[in-house]
């Protein structure tokens, strides 16, 4: 008997929770709801929270400037936030929740583990349009109702090749997170590209997320005369590997291939030990700010004003995602998913002047290739002092 009481309470709480949602549904006439799925809590918070905030900022900005004009009518954007904790099961639950609340436009997810779990659900639902602003794993988009405005790992590798070409490094030792699908699947191609540049591959070692001791593999570097240690994975391990390589006497160049917030990096290694490390990823929000980009500076300012700290590496991507949706709605002249999908596929880079991220247009000027993937290329940045900055490779 006693057991009934908690379940009754649960019903009440659920009921109270649903009420405002029904109210929200009634208001939907002049409102477009965009769902966003990001890791607000959990191990990837440092990526996910600044993304979620970027989405919110863009929506507020658009609403203040008059909203979205579709078919002669003005709509306000409302963001429905869901936390996936970077976990596939939580992510799927989050998507189902959004779908059941009749949300038809999705931004996210971030994590390489979540995106493949959502893909089959989104693909089968013609009342959904998804724009991924995270994972770099290949083959996550379909160009029909799934698009991505983040780079693929192939885009990262472009920058690695550029760096090796410019610096004429003779040899490289690679250490790769063996559970990162994106890096693992592109390992062979990257090694092939580097070999074509005349780089000898001294070793290819693997580790996994959460490893803390890399001494055995790093000790072997000493005998292999590798000029460069290339680390492909996540920043916590990247920092530990860099630190332990230095402790074990590696004096060559360290190159990273990972989005790495300085705050996360500095938890695992001192700034002095990071000095001069190269990173090969598409420019981050902060990079654009350092390059003097006005739109990036405005975003940075708005973000700091609201959250009292700087934006995250991926904030610009999430911010751009909202503007891409806005452009697609307006181009479609309808909120019907089929029309929005078509308009999204046809968007030109020049249609969206608000984009912070500098995408390379497709040959015909469109933003997305036929498979729904943008062309976003990695660039080389270098650690100076306490943070990354764009590197000039010519000197």
């Amino acid at each position, binding site marked *: 008997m006693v057991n009934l009481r908690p379940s009754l309470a649960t019903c009440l709480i659920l009921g109270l929770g649903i009420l405002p949602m029904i109210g929200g549904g009634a208001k939907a006439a002049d409102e477009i709801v965009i769902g966003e799925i990001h890791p607000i809590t959990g191990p990837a*918070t440092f990526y996910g929270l600044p993304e979620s905030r970027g989405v919110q900022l863009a929506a507020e900005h658009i609403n203040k400037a008059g909203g979205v004009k579709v078919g002669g009518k003005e709509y306000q954007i409302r963001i429905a936030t869901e936390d996936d904790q970077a976990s596939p099961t939580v992510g799927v639950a989050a998507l189902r929740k959004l779908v059941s609340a009749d949300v038809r436009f999705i931004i996210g997810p971030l994590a390489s583990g979540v995106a493949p779990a959502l893909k089959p659900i989104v693909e089968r639902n013609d009342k959904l349009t998804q724009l991924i602003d995270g994972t770099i794993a290949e083959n996550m988009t379909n160009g029909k109702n799934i698009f991505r405005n983040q780079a693929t790992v192939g885009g990262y590798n472009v920058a690695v090749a550029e760096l090796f070409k410019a610096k004429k490094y003779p040899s490289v030792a690679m250490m790769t997170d063996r559970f990162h699908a994106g890096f693992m699947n592109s390992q062979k191609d990257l090694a092939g590209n580097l070999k074509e540049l005349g780089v000898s591959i001294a070793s290819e070692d693997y580790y996994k997320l959460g490893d803390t001791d890399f001494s*055995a593999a790093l000790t*072997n570097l000493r005998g292999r005369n590798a000029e460069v240690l290339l680390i492909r994975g996540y920043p916590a391990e990247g920092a530990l590997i860099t630190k332990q390589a230095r402790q074990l006497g590696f004096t060559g160049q360290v190159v990273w291939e990972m989005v790495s917030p300085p705050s996360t990096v500095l938890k695992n290694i001192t700034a002095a030990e990071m000095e001069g490390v190269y990173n090969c990823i598409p420019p981050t929000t902060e990079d654009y700010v350092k390059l003097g980009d006005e739109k990036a500076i405005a975003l940075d300012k708005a973000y700091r004003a609201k959250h009292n700290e700087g934006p995250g590496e991926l904030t610009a991507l999430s911010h751009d995602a909202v503007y891409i949706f806005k452009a697609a709605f307006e181009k479609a002249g309808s909120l019907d998913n089929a029309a929005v999908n078509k308009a999204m596929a046809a968007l030109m880079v020049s249609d969206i002047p608000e984009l912070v991220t500098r995408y390379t247009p497709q040959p015909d000027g469109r933003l997305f290739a036929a498979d729904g993937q943008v062309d976003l290329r990695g660039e080389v940045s270098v650690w100076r002092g306490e943070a990354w900055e764009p590197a000039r490779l010519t000197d």
Partner: protein
Amino acid sequence: MMLELLPQQLANGLALGSTYALVALGLTLIFGVLLIPNFAHGEFYMLGAFVTYALVATGLNFWLAMATAVVLVVLIGWIVDRVVFQPVAAAPGHDSGGHGSGLSLMISALAGSIILQQLATIIWGTEARTIPAPMTGMVRTSLFTITYLQITIIATLAVAWTAVWLVLHRSRLGLAIRATSQNRDAALLMGISMTRVRLATFAIGAALGAVAGALLGATFPIYPSMGVNPVLKAFVVLVIGGIGSLPGAIVGGLVLGMVEVMVAGYGSSQFQDIGTFLILVAVLLIRPQGLFGRAQVER
């Protein structure tokens, strides 16, 4: 060429193995004396790290912070025993002596482990943090380099082992603990108070876990689930070394560290984990009671 690197790989193995042994020491004690597969040992380790972190953040000296963390984690250890393990031992279906069955103890240990992780998540969040290292720098010789922190961990292991050995072999309480671990019923018949033995065993075990957590937390990032993998490794160490054997925990830890480093160094880093399981299987086949284990005494 690879042979030149052997001294460094041995140093790597020693450093890694010491961390395994330090975690395994407390686990083997509680397992050996009270027959509790204490998965929550990983959380003693985690809490040792987090309490040290929190106190260092207030400006306290690292070593004082670690000492305070040890005291706090011992208190938590007692609470865990009282709340998680004793009710299982006292539940119907077990004799009055207070042996829970292995399975129910293991399940309640897992539950305790999860609850402590959740508590830590509520207090500190899931974001990884770092304890500022109490020392930096390293010894560089022509043969190998080793950091001061690694030397400290190896020295701590030696000190911890000596201290536990002295308690067990030079005190009346230690005599009672050893008696309990060899034959619990006979120990009761000697008039040994199980309450005192439990308190003492959990205190020593939790303290060892906390010390390991504080020291390793100064090397690696800390987060609420940081104890899960070390405790699994520690169980492997126990099987290798012999459950309940302190020298077994030390030697087992060092053997495991060495094997992992040698497999990764002279084989492939992809096989590091496979090395762990190969040695586990080898021990189970050749010496199932572990390197230092004796065939189980009739209880």
